[in-house]
């Protein structure tokens, strides 16, 4: 029966090629606009570490008090040195790391080459196991290296390619800011987007990648300047990098792994206890006002998904709805024009269900054709987002099987949905009335 309906549908669609083309174009454009913006939205709202994000937490401590809080009572979104070091030393989470952004220059061994500047982070040894960082060669450094402020470094595969031609460089030496560091690990193409471990400095997305990681305390003792944001509630009392460390200026990102809700609760109590202690000691003149957000909540609170992306997706969905309404109107016109044909079929004994099947098949065929056009346009759309979107976001959008399947599925479902009412009306055609008027 289906092949008969398909034949009927094709014949009917051929009879009014203009109207058919119009419907196919409408569906194609509507679906493509939605799916192109969705591909961008999907890319920026994705979970950068889905298997673990619910166990990763970002603590915030209110070291500024009421005058430094945001309108919603939020404490600063980064940490000062004093509190970050206290949290690392107390070591109350399963794994944890303080982090700050550095931009050291590296002098190639080959004297004829110019020095290169890199971007990276000073982190604690637990950073690597906590974030399941993949290694191509070697590994992270040990807790002992942390304590000894060892001159060790983990480098990206890209930097390894540049400096060592991609060979296993573990044990080799690199010159960072005039000092020798031993390479202990080479990352295996690790460039999570959003850069969830330091959203405050990267704004979530960045085109560059972190090339180098060195022990946090090593970077501090080398006075390696913070290359990220520094926010102060008051001017540091002493000058220099040491003055920054003794101030309440915030410039350090922090992350902790807490495996279950009991651990989260204990850690929350620990943070409040710490703030309370600081209050009693007179350092904070206010009640504890801490936050402990899981990674997804943290990304959300930092507005990592640009609002432009969300607005674009909404507007494109609006476009799709208009396209559906339009298709519904055109299908209605098309189906009712054939009232006499329906009358004849019904009079010859066709059931209402057969009319349903016949016209939904026709709508489905329009949907498939619209979907095919939508596939093409979505492909073009995703390829051309680079023209209109910032680089760091545009490069993340990509076409894959899921996107294409979804495009086709939505096109067909949407057209069937649009065809429901016209089909219902077609099935209600009174055979007697139609035959009479003929």
């Amino acid at each position, binding site marked *: 029966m289906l092949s008969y309906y398909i034949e009927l549908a094709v014949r009917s669609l051929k009879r009014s090629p203009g109207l058919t083309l119009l419907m196919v174009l409408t569906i194609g454009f509507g679906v493509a606009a939605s799916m192109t913006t969705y591909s961008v939205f999907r890319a920026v709202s994705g979970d950068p570490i889905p298997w673990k994000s619910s166990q990763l937490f970002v603590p915030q401590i209110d070291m500024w008090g009421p005058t430094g809080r945001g309108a919603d009572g939020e404490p600063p979104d980064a940490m000062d040195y004093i509190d970050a070091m206290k949290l690392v030393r107390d070591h109350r989470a399963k794994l944890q790391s303080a982090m700050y952004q550095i931009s050291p220059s590296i002098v190639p061994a080959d004297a004829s080459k110019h020095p290169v500047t890199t971007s990276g982070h000073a982190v604690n040894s637990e950073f690597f196991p906590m974030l399941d960082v993949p290694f191509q060669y070697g590994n992270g450094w040990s807790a002992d290296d942390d304590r000894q402020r060892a001159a060790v470094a983990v480098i990206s595969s890209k930097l390894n390619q540049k400096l060592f031609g991609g060979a296993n460089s573990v044990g080799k030496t690199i010159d960072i800011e005039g000092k020798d560091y031993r390479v202990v690990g080479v990352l295996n193409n690790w460039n999570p987007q959003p850069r969830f471990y330091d959203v405050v400095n990267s704004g979530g997305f960045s085109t560059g990648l972190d090339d180098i990681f060195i022990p946090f305390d090593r970077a501090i003792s080398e006075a390696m300047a913070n290359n990220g944001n520094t926010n102060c509630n008051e001017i540091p009392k002493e*000058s220099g990098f040491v003055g920054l460390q003794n101030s309440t200026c915030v410039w350090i990102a922090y992350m902790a792994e807490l495996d279950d809700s009991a651990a989260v609760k204990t850690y929350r109590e620990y943070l409040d206890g710490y703030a309370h202690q600081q209050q009693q000691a007179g350092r904070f003149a206010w009640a504890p006002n801490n936050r402990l957000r899981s990674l997804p909540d943290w990304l959300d609170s930092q507005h990592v998904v640009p609002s432009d992306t969300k607005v*674009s997706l909404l507007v494109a969905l609006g476009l799709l709805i208009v396209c559906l309404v339009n298709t519904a109107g055109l299908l209605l016109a098309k189906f009712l024009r054939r009232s006499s044909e329906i009358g004849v079929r019904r009079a010859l004994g066709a059931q209402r269900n057969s009319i349903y099947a016949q016209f939904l098949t026709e709508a489905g065929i329009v949907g498939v054709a619209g979907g095919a056009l939508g596939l093409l346009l979505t492909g073009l759309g995703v390829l051309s987002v680079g023209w209109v979107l910032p680089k760091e976001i545009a490069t993340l959008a990509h076409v894959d099987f899921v996107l294409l399947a979804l495009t086709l599925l939505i096109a067909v479902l949407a057209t069937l949905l649009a065809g429901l009412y016209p089909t219902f009306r077609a099935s209600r055609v009174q055979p007697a009335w139609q035959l009479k008027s003929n």
Partner: protein
Amino acid sequence: MTTHPILAALRKHKAGVVLIALQIALTLAIVCNAIFIIGQRIERVHRVTGIDESNLFLVTQQWVGAPDGDDPSGVEKLDNMQREDLVALRNLPDVASVAPINSLPLLNSSWNGAISLKPGSEMRKGGNTRTTFYFGDEQMLSTLGVRLVAGRAFTAADVQHRSMHDQTEPTVVILTKPVADKLFPDGNAVGKAMYLDGSTSPTTIIGVIERLQVPGTGSWTNTFAYNATLEPLRIDANFTRYVVRAKPGRMDALMQAMPSTLYKINPMRVLDDDSVKSFADIRAEAYRADVGMAILMGVVCLVLLGVTAAGIVGLTSFWVGQRHRQIGVRRALGARKIDILHYFQIENLMIAGGGAIVGVALAVGLNAWLMKHFEMDRIPVVYVLVGLIALVALGQAAVFVPARRASNVSPIEATRAV
């Protein structure tokens, strides 16, 4: 022509009428808001920076193995290296002027703080004036091409130098007019004292420039977009920035030669692909997202209007076909072609008008929702009115072709059996 028969006929096509009206309403709601977004982005992109943007470029470079700038001898060494660069750059034949600077408008890398008229006030408390800071020497004003409206420019004697982490406040500054007017509404800021960043030592205002935009382009800078304080200061750090004004027509060559020129002065530095950047590129990068959003909204609007117009043509054509016989009867009874044309035009006017009125409510509702959930301003009435007129006009334009076809139906149709 009375509208009664049109209304009576519309009642027979309730579903079609509702679908077209709904489509027009939704289109109006989306198009109004999309065009409003476009308008806002265009307005943002056209904000003036206050500087003369042609022939201007920025050099950002990092020293290798330089002292950390926390001890006095390190600071002096860094300052010597910086001055060596400045002297060499100023001697280049293609250079009009050069100044050390910490940032430029639209560069999105900024030093911000607060100004108070009282000493030692808490920085984040109300009553302080937010400002961004630009640090540079006596050639900063002329290199940027900003206009001095009161007082004097910096002289070489004003210029200090210090490390990045040193908190000493300057003795003299130049303010932009918005800051000066906010602090001293009477317009006599020059010569007055004020306090920077909660400091207890006073700073004297020696000049006022007309306009200079802050480096930040995010919405967080909207409250102080033109509040800038210029300090006569060379910052000594592990990196330097130089803003360079090239002689007319010489910029490309100068930019091209810049890396080798700098390496010749001192090879122990890092220059990367972004180290030499024209101001045009800085501007394009800063507004890339805004331009992109405007283009995207424009494309969506075009598709929406196209789809809606096509929908009207399609459905009206169907109605014309369906009413062939009735049209023939009317023509046979004496209706002129123009009457038939008007019939369909008025019918469309009624549907589109009804849809557009619903659309106005939807547009305002959508705007309110966007305001609540995203950073969006209230849509001005004019956008909604223009949208309303545009959609009604679109309806009339779309209906014209099928309506004219209807008016060409011959009266003889009345006598033919269908």
